[in-house]
């Protein structure tokens, strides 16, 4: 590295200030703008920039819309300009920009001249990075959705192949054998075959209900839930205590489907991971919203950092489904205390008028 003279250094710094893609503001102790570089000028709305250059407006607040603190996404509480003691070497700030609306920036704010009270405020545009992150996230989730779909198809295909086709073949063989049997034996064989066919019917019925419960279309949420919970109790040995206080019998079809699927997923999650003998499900109406609680007193997990045990699509899928019908989904969980899934969906007015 060559030894740099002071003049060279100043030259470099001026060039950096002029040509940097990073927006640089020099501010005084009150947060008034002393100077800003060309990159910073580009961010700000031209008419506002005029006023700043003319000295009519000095404050950063004219286009700052808050920063991301520990508690809030966008806030002016404990403003970075007024709290020089705190660490603001790297934080996220939202600015009203020229033509692009409110945009998040990665910012740093620190004192560079203690004597004269001069601060530097530097910004880097995060939009591109955000978009990329979002795209990566979306692609990942789409991939997971496709995988889950494929997995489900494989399960159905295997079920059809292993149980339905197998049993049919065995029935066919039984019937063929009957040709060569005594009449007395045939009657017994018919009994057996009847048993096989009954079992087969039950298998297919199960599969069909699992795919789409007819009771949901014909009788509504309450009935569909009751039969599903009976099935859960028998198959997994776990009691689901179900309370419903809904007044309305039927809701819009897509709303019923969504609530049913979310409940099914939440209950299955509890069955798989909570390690409990009982799950509580409450379906209720409050004002103009349909609410669903699925509660267990089991293992619980860290909601912010769940260790993915299954496909990792469950919780995400539940939230996505809820959002599609303007619903809200909240998951509360504590280790060794249990998990509560709460779903709240607005009830549209149309059905009441009908």
């Amino acid at each position, binding site marked *: 590295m060559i030894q740099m003279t002071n003049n060279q250094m100043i030259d470099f710094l001026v060039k950096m200030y002029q040509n940097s893609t990073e927006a640089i503001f020099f501010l005084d102790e009150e947060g008034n703008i002393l100077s800003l570089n060309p990159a910073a000028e580009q961010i700000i709305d031209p008419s506002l920039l005029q006023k700043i250059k003319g000295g009519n407006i000095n404050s950063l607040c004219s286009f700052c819309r808050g920063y991301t603190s520990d508690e809030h996404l966008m806030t002016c509480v404990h403003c970075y300009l007024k709290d020089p003691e705190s660490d603001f070497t790297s934080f996220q700030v939202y600015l009203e920009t020229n033509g692009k609306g409110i945009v998040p920036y990665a910012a740093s704010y620190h004192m560079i001249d203690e004597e004269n009270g001069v601060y530097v405020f530097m910004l880097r545009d995060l939009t591109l990075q955000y978009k990329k992150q979002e795209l990566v996230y979306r692609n990942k989730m789409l991939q997971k959705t496709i995988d889950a779909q494929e997995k489900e198809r494989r399960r159905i295909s295997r079920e059809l192949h292993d149980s339905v086709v197998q049993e049919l073949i065995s029935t066919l063989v039984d019937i063929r054998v009957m040709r060569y049997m005594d009449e007395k034996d045939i009657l017994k064989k018919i009994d057996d075959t009847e*048993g096989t066919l009954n079992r087969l019917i*039950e298998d297919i019925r199960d599969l069909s209900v699992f795919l789409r419960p007819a009771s949901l279309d014909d009788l509504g949420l309450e009935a569909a839930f009751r039969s599903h919970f009976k099935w859960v*109790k028998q*198959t997994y*040995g776990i009691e689901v205590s179900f309370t419903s206080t809904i007044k309305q019998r039927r809701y819009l079809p897509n709303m019923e489907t969504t609530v049913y699927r979310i409940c099914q997923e939440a209950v299955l999650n509890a069955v798989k991971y909570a390690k409990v003998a009982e799950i509580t499900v409450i379906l209720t109406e409050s004002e103009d919203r349909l609410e669903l609680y699925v509660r267990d007193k089991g293992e619980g997990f860290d909601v912010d950092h769940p260790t993915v045990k299954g496909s990792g699509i469950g919780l995400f899928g539940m939230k996505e489904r809820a959002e599609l019908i303007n619903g809200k989904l909240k998951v509360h969980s504590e280790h060794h205390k249990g998990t509560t899934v709460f779903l709240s969906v607005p009830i549209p007015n149309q059905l009441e008028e009908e």
Partner: protein
Amino acid sequence: MESFDFQTAIHQLHEIYEVDLVALAMVLPEEQFLLKWKYISGNLNQQYKRIQLRTGKGVAGAVFKSGKPYIVSNVPTQIDPNKMYHYPILQFEQIKSFVALPLFKNHRVTAVLLVASREIEGAGIALYQRMMDELGECFGPLYLQELMTN
């Protein structure tokens, strides 16, 4: 079949083989495709009573369907922990190893005998061999092997 005292027989197996749990699942007489745990010895709780299995589902369902013994000497490594919920009896009774045998009547599986341990390797091939040697052909009115007569 009704005259045979299954409960006592189950208790005896429990003592003879020094395992933690012995249970017998039977096909429901009214619905030939459902299995329930009817007789049990050494259980920790009553949760088994809720279980009703279909062909192919759960430990009993798998044996019922295949007609073959199902032997797992190390549940935590041989059964995917994420699929454990398909085997409620193993979870409720904290089973770590087991032998499950089909029992036949009229060439059909009508019951499944579960002999299980709460310790890894507590039950396995050796136990299965011993049982097959000692029990002989029958367990009460039920056969241990599907007899090939027709």
